[in-house]
């Protein structure tokens, strides 16, 4: 008996996947349901309300939102480029791209923190009305996902990257999985931006 879990790196022929990739997609399926539930709650609360303020009425800055959208999209591209660099056996480029992703996620969080701070300063707290409440919940849960992604990406950028020397194929697989998660977080924001800031 081999002492390792089968199909941790190589592909199982009948499913065409390795364990990690199947796992991350199942996790994302669950995440779809999580954000789906929040989104559904948003729709229910909004359709039930006789008056629903626009984001701008409550002091949301569309331009900051747009900047953050662009920041996150860019971080998604650097993430996929980090993976592609590993595919091309270019470890230095990988470091640069993943570093850029980390930096951009910091920028996103800083902008978000300024937005939050500005709202708290103007008394726009979650308890003021249901729009602000769902705004803070949606962006807050999304922000937690960003932080979670940063922890994972930070690990692979720093101590975790040692694996490139011992098991490059496995490491590339891990970056792909981290990337899938990161793109999903980006994808959620693509919906959150118009829903909260514009509509």
């Amino acid at each position, binding site marked *: 008996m081999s002492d390792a879990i089968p199909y*941790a790196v190589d592909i199982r022929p009948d499913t065409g996947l390795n364990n990690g990739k199947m796992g991350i997609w199942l996790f994302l399926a*669950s995440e779809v349901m*999580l954000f789906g539930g929040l989104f559904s709650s948003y729709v229910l609360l909004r359709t039930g309300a006789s008056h629903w303020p626009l984001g701008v009425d409550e002091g949301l800055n569309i331009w900051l939102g747009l900047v953050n959208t662009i920041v996150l999209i860019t971080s998604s591209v650097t993430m996929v480029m980090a993976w592609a660099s590993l595919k091309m056996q270019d470890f230095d480029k990988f470091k640069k791209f993943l570093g850029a992703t980390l930096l951009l996620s910091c920028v996103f969080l800083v902008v978000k923190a300024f937005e939050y701070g500005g709202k708290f300063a103007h008394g726009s707290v979650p308890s003021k009305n249901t729009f602000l409440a769902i705004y803070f*919940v949606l962006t807050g849960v999304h922000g937690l996902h960003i932080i979670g992604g940063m922890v994972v990406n930070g690990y692979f950028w720093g101590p975790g990257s040692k694996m490139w020397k011992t098991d490059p194929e496995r490491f590339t697989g891990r970056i792909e999985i981290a990337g899938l998660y990161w793109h999903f977080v980006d994808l959620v924001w693509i919906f959150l931006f118009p829903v909260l800031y514009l509509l």
Partner: protein
Amino acid sequence: MDNSLDSSHSASFWRKYVFSIDHKWIGIQYGITGLLFLLFGFCLMLLMRWQLAYPERPLPFFGAWFGELRMPEGVMLPEFYNQLGAMHGTIMIFLGVVPLAVGAFGNYFVPLQIGAPDMAFPRLNMASYWAYFLGGVTMLISFFVPGGAANSGWTSYPPLAVIATTGQTLWLFGMIFLITSSLLGSINFIVTIFQLRAPGMTLMRMPFFVWTQLTTAFLLLLAFPALEVAAILQLMDRLADTSFFMPSGLVVSGEIQDYSGGGSVLLYQHLFWFLAHPEVYVLILPAMGIITEIIANNTRKPIGGYKPMVYALVFLGFMSFVVWAHHMFLTGMGTAISSFFQATTMIISIPSIVILAALMLTLWGGSIRFNVPMLFALAFLPMFGIGGLTGLPLGLSTADIHLHDTYYVIGHFHYVVAPGTLFALFSGIYYWFPKVTGRKMNEFLGHLHFWPTFISMNIIFMPMLIQGLAGMSRRLWDGGLTYADTTPEGVLTGGILTAGIIGLHKVISMGAWTMALFQIPFIFNFFWSIWWGKKVTSDNPWEATTLEWAAPSPPPHGNFATVPVTYRGPYEYSVPDAERDFSPQFQETI
């Protein structure tokens, strides 16, 4: 995160027994914790039964233990009764039955039954157990915060739950831990089942138990996020004073609440039941899987219709996502929506009946061995049948008007979960004990456990159906005295409950205490057999066909000496012309 299973061969005590990554040890951890919580939840119920049978009388012997805040002079306060009710439900479902059915049996036997060396993600598996453990501890701590544990029912409906005492906040945090645990667990199960099957183990050769775990894992994966949303939003309502679930102008004790309003109480109920209905199937499906193994083994014939059972199971899983609002017929949803959910509810009873009928038909013409696991499995069939059939009137929106929130509902779902799922779990413990420990449990003590438990279960739950039909609400802390038609002195009060109906509480409570007494043989048997039970002489003492019996008892680290190859379906018993009356999956020739 290196991937070798070797790392814990020469591991330290902590690695081996506390933060173990071996699926078998994690299964045992789940099992022990789950059984302890089951006992704890059971004790909460015993306290409630005293209060219901003898309201306002001091509890003898133990009454003084609970202090002035809960039971001054041994008489239970309504607030404490409400805590017991809410926590009994929460603990039994989320900390007792599901961790046993999925965490313990699933973890231990799914990898063995598909011929895998371990779960696909051993460290995730460990994290899943510890998240569950933390959730459980949070729930226990909540009993000691001011105001006590959560007291808004196991469903935690707002607005009541939002204005409830601190215990509710801990309940919500506890739930978030439990949701995380089951999310990690379910991903692990699905990947393990699809990726780590041994050569020859095609999907349609998997034991039915594995199929039930697979379906359950999908239910947990996709339904639990809805409860997570509900928990997050309710936490916001409680901690940040938002009003997701709080309507405008809510008045509590004559005072208008300081909420911005605009929330929807129905939103919570929808989110909650979007999880909680599939959760019902999480409770019952693994149980069906366990008894399928045991019935096939002890009738010595193939189960009657493996494929139809699998298809019915998958269909059941799908349908369980579109029946949730049958818990909400009385919320004013409107008739069109109610009719839709009524129709889906009637449809979902069909696959359950397919599975039950297949198991019943398996008994026909079998040479049945009446050992203890089989007794529990046989008792499961009619008990689950009663539970299922009593559910039909609840699924009809008109009949539900009368029955909603009465003891009938309590009787119904306890028939499904207590003599249903719990019997299956007991059955599984007796059946797989030799695999886990290398020793059999004592048969005589098993009988002493089974027969009184079986009888007292019915003494407990059958009268509840009658009380419910008579209109007894499930939420009465005084056992219905407020609604009695006469005072104890015989003066007419105009209430609806006769002395006879209220008196049934005493019968039920006697049944409950009898049942408690006859769990002692089980507990004794369990521990005694670990060290002094009769040693099994072969790895396959029940002469079963599935792969777990190919492994040594108990299985070593990595489970199998060589990767087992699967040659045939899971229940090839009494094959014509075969040498013996069972042809294991791992044996090349019949």
